[in-house]
C-alpha cells in the first residue's frame, strides 16, 4: 500500500468530516451528515490485507479524533472495527450496492456507539438524542456510501491497494 496517497485521502476525508462543506447536504434539525471517514474505513477494511487494514483503520480513527474534541475513542473503536471487519470480510459480499450500504450502516453504528461510550467514560458527558443522531448518520452514510465506493474503487491503483481476492490467490 502506498501510504502517502492514503494519508492524503484520509486528510481529505477528515476535512470533509470536520469542516462545513457537508452542511450543504445536511438534513434535519440535528444537521445529519454522512461520515466520509467511516466509508473510507469500510472500503479499506474490505479491500486490504489484514496488516494494512489494521494500520489504516488506526490512522483513520486517529484522524477522526484529531478533528474532534478528544483523543482516543475513535482511534480505539475504528481500529477494532476495521480489524474485525477485515477478518470477516471474506464472509460478506461487497460487490452490490446494497451489501456495501449494509456494511457501512452496521460498522458506522457499532464504531460510533463504541466511540460514544468510550468518550462518555472519559469525560463523563453524555448527549441527548445521541443514539438517534448516530442511527441517522449511519443511515445517511449507508445511502451515500455506495456512490463514494465507486469513486474509491477508481483510486485503488493510486493507493496501491491490493484487492483481497488477489492477495488470497483469487479465492473470492
Amino acid at each position, binding site marked *: 500500500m502506498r501510504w502517502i496517497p492514503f494519508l492524503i485521502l484520509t486528510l481529505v476525508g477528515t476535512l470533509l468530516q470536520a469542516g462545513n462543506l457537508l452542511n450543504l447536504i445536511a438534513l434535519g434539525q440535528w*444537521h445529519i451528515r454522512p461520515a466520509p471517514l467511516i466509508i473510507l474505513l469500510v472500503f479499506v477494511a474490505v479491500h486490504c490485507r489484514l496488516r494494512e487494514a489494521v494500520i489504516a483503520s488506526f490512522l483513520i480513527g486517529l484522524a477522526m479524533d484529531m478533528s474532534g474534541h478528544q483523543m482516543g475513542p475513535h482511534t480505539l473503536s475504528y481500529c477494532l472495527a476495521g480489524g474485525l471487519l477485515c477478518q470477516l470480510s471474506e464472509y460478506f459480499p461487497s460487490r452490490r450496492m446494497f451489501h456495501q450500504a449494509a456494511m457501512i450502516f452496521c460498522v458506522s453504528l457499532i464504531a460510533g456507539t463504541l466511540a460514544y461510550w468510550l468518550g462518555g467514560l472519559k469525560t463523563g458527558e453524555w448527549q*441527548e438524542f445521541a443514539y438517534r443522531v448516530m442511527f441517522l448518520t449511519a443511515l445517511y452514510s449507508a445511502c451515500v456510501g455506495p456512490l463514494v465506493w465507486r469513486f474509491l474503487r477508481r483510486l485503488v491503483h493510486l493507493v496501491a491497494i491490493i484487492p483481497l481476492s488477489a492477495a488470497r490467490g483469487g479465492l473470492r
Partner: protein
Amino acid sequence: MAGRRFQLSNGALFGLLLCAGIVLLALPREKTQSVNYLFARLFSPLLRIGRSFPEFRAAMPHPDEQYVPREEHNKLWKNYKNLHAQLLRLQDDYQTLAKVRSGLPRFFSGLTIAEVVGAGGGLTQELLISKGAADGVRVGQYVLSPEQNSIVGVVRDAAERMARVRLLTDANQSIEVRIRRDGTPMDVGALMVGDGKRGCTVSLVEREKDIRVGDAVYAAARPGLLETPMIIGQVAEVVPDEDSPLLWKITVQPAENASTLKTVAVIVPEMTAPMRQ
C-alpha cells in the same frame, strides 16, 4: 551474519495499536486538546468553507403585522429587553444606594471579537473560535452574538490561540437564568439546560409561579463576568412536568440561531484582558 529483521505478527500489531488507542484514551484531555486545536488552526481556512448551515425557522415569533423586517424586529426586541433589564438594575441602585455615589452600571467590562472557525465536532453543540488565552479568553466566560445583544454560549476550554464555546442548546450546558415579564415584578430564578437540539429546558420551577409563553429569559448576572442580566430567549412552552406534577417543564427558545454565526463576542473581564490591549 545478516541481522534478523524484527517483524510483528498481525495479531501483535493489532494488539499494539489497540494499546496505543487505550493510552490515548487514558491521557487527560488537557494534555491532548492541543492536538485538536493545532489541527483546527492549521486547516481553519479549509474548515470554514461552507460555514452557513441550512436555514431553519426563525427563533422569534412572527409578528402579526410586520412593520419592519423580521431580523430588524428580532434585533429591536433583544435590545429592548436588555435596556429594560438595565433600567431595573438602575432603579434598584437608586433606591438602595441613593446616598452612596455609584458609577453607571455597565453590561460588561470588555469584549473580544472572534471568528467562528467551525463546529466542535461529534455529537456536541460547540463552536471553535479564533481567540484564546492570549486574548484573555478563559473558561466560563460568556459568549455573545455578533450584535452583542444576546448570550449564545459559554467558553468551555481555551488554548493559546483558539477556544471552544459550548452553546446554550448543548445538553451538557447549564446556566442560571431569570424569567421576567414586562410590566410585572416577576423575577423567577432557575437553572436552564440545553436540550441537545435547538432549544433549552428549565425545570424545578414550582407550579405556583405564574410562568407564561412569551416571558423573557435572561442570563443571571454574575459578578466579574456579567454585571447586568442579558437576554437569552423567551419561553416557548409551559407544561406540567410529567415526572414531577408539582413542577413546570419550561421550554425556552433562544433568541439567536447560533449555528449560523460567523463571528461572536466573548465577554472578557478587565483583569484577564491581555496587557497589550
